[in-house]
């Protein structure tokens, strides 16, 4: 109840031409209930610093990442493949 009330105040104070903070988060939640950024946070905190940095120096990555030149369909996709569980048996 109190939440509804404060929601009303919020939309009352701000012009109807703009989305309120509440409405904005309601629309975002409607677009998707999933939170991949939370998963990303979880993974990055377990990542060891500097591991895999060489990938960022490869021609493929640099070429793919460069958006300053002409848009080329040919370099729109970078696929990194491998065995995702490398060291599974070695690194328990």
């Amino acid at each position, binding site marked *: 109840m109190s939440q509804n009330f404060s929601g009303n105040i919020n939309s009352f104070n701000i012009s109807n031409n703009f989305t309120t903070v509440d409405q904005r988060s309601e629309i975002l939640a409607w*677009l998707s209930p999933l939170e991949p950024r939370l998963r990303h946070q979880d*993974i990055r905190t377990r990542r060891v610093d500097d591991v895999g940095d060489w990938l960022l120096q490869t021609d493929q990555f640099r070429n793919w990442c460069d958006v300053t030149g002409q848009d080329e369909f040919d370099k729109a996709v970078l696929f990194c493949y491998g065995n995702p569980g490398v060291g599974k048996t070695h690194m328990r």
Partner: protein
Amino acid sequence: MLTSHDFSSLVIDTLCDRAREQDFAVACFYCDFTAQNEQSPTSTLGAVLKQVVSGLKEIPEEIMQAFEDQKQAIGGRGLRLPEIVKNLQTISSSRHTFICIDSLDECVPEHRVKLLDSLKSIIQKSPGTRVFLTGRSHIRSEIEKRLGGRILSLLVSPNEDDIVKYLRARLEEDTTPEAMDDSLESDILKSIPESVSEMYVGGVI
């Protein structure tokens, strides 16, 4: 354990750092075979659209309108896949957009086909879009076929340096450091990377 997640999260962080300087959008998604049911192409790209929209100052009018319209439906309804794709095409045409999807091989094959087809139509409409994908090598030909044209591909496996850094970090977390002495530690740091790199002869190092 080192996995493709480590490489994906590194790439995503690097892009996010650059996005703060240059104005572009970054969206990520981690496929997970334990969540296959909830990771349909619609929900995957819906989550991508959400991240892209959350970076905009104002929510696009079309999305606002669709949000209002769906309230008329009983119980409401989410955007359908073609609508999600259309919105991503529109936004990425005016703002460089990086879409990163990790572990595509963990996605249900039928879902993956639709997902790749959707990504293709986004790129075709908006060639400034960049898509980063990871997955096991057996899906490489499928990706090439579905996305058409040439794609950049890169064999990714941890090199010896990565493995040493990783082991060092894990050894520092050891809860029983008294069991470790210098010679054991140097043995570990020497023998494990050797045996791992033997498994990856020809890898990108």
